[in-house]
């Protein structure tokens, strides 16, 4: 279901352990990672993860809160959004 696809965008200064920490949080919540892309923008590390939350027992709100908490521990900014917003906005 498209409702279950979420996009996580993590940005900040590059450091050791970003992928490990965020992936661990996702694993704990039973959220499946479908794709990961990384890029450097204006000296900032930006990682985007496409995930599916359909097999998680937790709801979107809690998953988002946990990810933002993990981001704060890393000193990174984390955005968690349902993927539909990007699909609607950028495709005709």
């Amino acid at each position, binding site marked *: 279901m498209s409702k279950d696809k979420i996009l996580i965008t993590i940005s900040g200064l590059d450091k050791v352990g970003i992928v490990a920490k965020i992936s661990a949080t996702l694993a704990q919540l039973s959220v499946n990672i*479908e*794709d990961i*892309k990384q890029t450097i923008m204006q000296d900032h590390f*930006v990682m*985007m993860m496409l995930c599916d939350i359909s097999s998680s027992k937790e709801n979107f*709100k809690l998953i988002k809160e946990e990810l933002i908490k993990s981001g704060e521990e890393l000193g990174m900014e984390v955005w968690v959004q*349902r993927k*539909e917003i990007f699909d*609607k906005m*950028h495709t005709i």
Partner: protein
Amino acid sequence: MADFNEKDIIETIQMIKVHHLDIRTTTLALSLRDCISEDIKVTGDKIYNKIIKYAKNLKKYADDLENEFSIPIINKRIAITPISLIGEAAKNPDYVYLAKVLDEAANEVGVDFIGGYSALVEKGCTRGDEIFLESIPEALASTQKLCSSVNLASSKAGINMKGVLKVADIIKKTAELTADKDGLGAAKFVCFCNSVSDNPFMAGAYCGINEPECALNIGVSGPGVVRWAIENIPKDADLGEVANIIKKTAFKITTTGELIGRELASRLNIPFGVIDLSLAPTPAEGDSVAGIFQAMGLEQAGAHGTTAALAMLNDAVKKGGTMASSYVGGLSGAFIPVSEDAQMIEAAKRGVLTIDKLEAMTCVCSVGLDMIAIPGDTPKSTIAGLIADEMAIGMINKKTTAVRVIPVPNKKEGEWVKFGGLLGEAPIMSLSKLDSSVFVNRSGRIPAPIHSLNN
């Protein structure tokens, strides 16, 4: 496996985070036609219960969606059937009582505004309308969230000049009754020519009598995003290219609004109504319609060329927006409120944006003279003249125009007024000192225009 494009993701987040893309309003339009009764208390009870029934989850569901898509939903609002029609059958038509009921219901469900304390009198008043109009100043002074509007003219009926003079009086009285807040009450009142029945924006939102039981109407916003998009193309790009980039941006803004609107309507289990394509500014830096003129290459709003720039902007937004949504409606045009737009405020402060230029601008965009602070001692007849001019522009051009001016009590031209929040701040503008009183006191109706021989 679904795919995604990094550039799209980053662009969307920048649009929201840096350039103020937001859903300005989710407005629940609700018919109150079944609340009519001979006893005003019964009418009030029916209205209160109906609003609670339909709107009790509006705020919560909107907040949920805000979280899921990480896009701010600034206002949650309710628009009701013009209340003049609902109270009219009562033996004791105490409209101020209904105003308080509406305000209480709005507070209970946690919405930001409730609109529809309204009357449609372009051809004249019923007895009920007359009682209603008298009640507006007190209703606005004794409520917080209530918004009021009056339709005074249309391209088919002409301009009700008796109504125009009455409304000028209402504006003055409302400002005086809220003198302790610099006449804030008048900021919650607007008069129209060709008002629309599915407008989600305040102060003019109401649920027209031709509308269904209920619907969810959406207003998006994103002048900052449009400005950013124009700034990203070369300074010497031709205006066809500028129009194109505005269309593409409007498409992106509108699809987002449509997505949120449809989701919210489905959760509330009510039909999705329309999306209003208006570009609505806020006083926040970078969220300005006048800022778009600067990006297009004008020094500031008010420069010669402003009307042309606004006409192109307004048209391009509609072209891009209609492609993005099945149901477009409401006002759908750029807003140019003076006190709610940082660059308009700046231009007014410098004295380069005058009431005459604003009037010209309203010929090519949707909303008319909006959020303009004027001297508190402006004669009623001068305000009536100002309204009549604006109504004439709407009537002849078959478009919506409106007037929302605030005669700030005890303040004079050049002094400053702060309304706060989305309503912003502004210098008090000068109006013509010439006398309009004999003309506006003639009363009667300016006849509807001929709809051929179009020059």
